[in-house]
């Protein structure tokens, strides 16, 4: 019985996680840089523009 409950809990966990990733979209995860100077160097090397997201943690 205990094993059955554990299996059900595991199944619920897997379903919940799979639906979360489905609603999160299928695009690549954005790899945010934390250090502006490193990002600036990357932009220099790649010719890409920098996108800075100024945020305040909730």
């Amino acid at each position, binding site marked *: 019985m205990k094993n059955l409950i554990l299996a059900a809990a595991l199944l619920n966990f897997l379903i919940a996680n799979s639906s979360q990733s489905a609603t999160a979209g299928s*695009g690549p995860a*954005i790899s*945010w840089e934390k250090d502006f100077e490193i990002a*600036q160097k990357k932009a220099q090397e790649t010719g890409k523009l920098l*996108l*800075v997201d100024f*945020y*305040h943690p909730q």
Partner: protein
Amino acid sequence: MDTVTYPEAKVSGLISQHFVPVKCNVGENKTLPQRFNVHWTPTLVVLDAQGTVHHSLTGFTSPEELVAQLEFAQAKASFNKGDFQAALSGFNGVVEKYPKSPIAPEALYWSTVSEYKRTGSRDALMNGWKRLLKEYPDSDWAKKVGFIEEK
């Protein structure tokens, strides 16, 4: 932004492919917000490696709108570099793909200026601005060219 806008495939794809994304926590980093005159969050700033700011926006932005804004920012960066052909193509793309976006009238304005810069054609300038007056008569950008109707 982290829960609604960034996870969208079209947003994350565009950012990952064409930008170097940086997160700045304004509670921890006081220097960067001051440097870019940021006093409210969320604020997004698009700049080049030399530190020249090409576009910025403040407040929550929907996925669709952020894509339009970022494509506009790319076109504006091309314009500021003097690459008027790339700028023209970028601004036209914004107007065609996102005609209802709040950035569309501004894109049409700069598309017209890009064409003028590229060709020197005064007719192109007048025709583009007439289109702006016709398609976006209530926009701030139409007000900037309203003088052509008085002539």
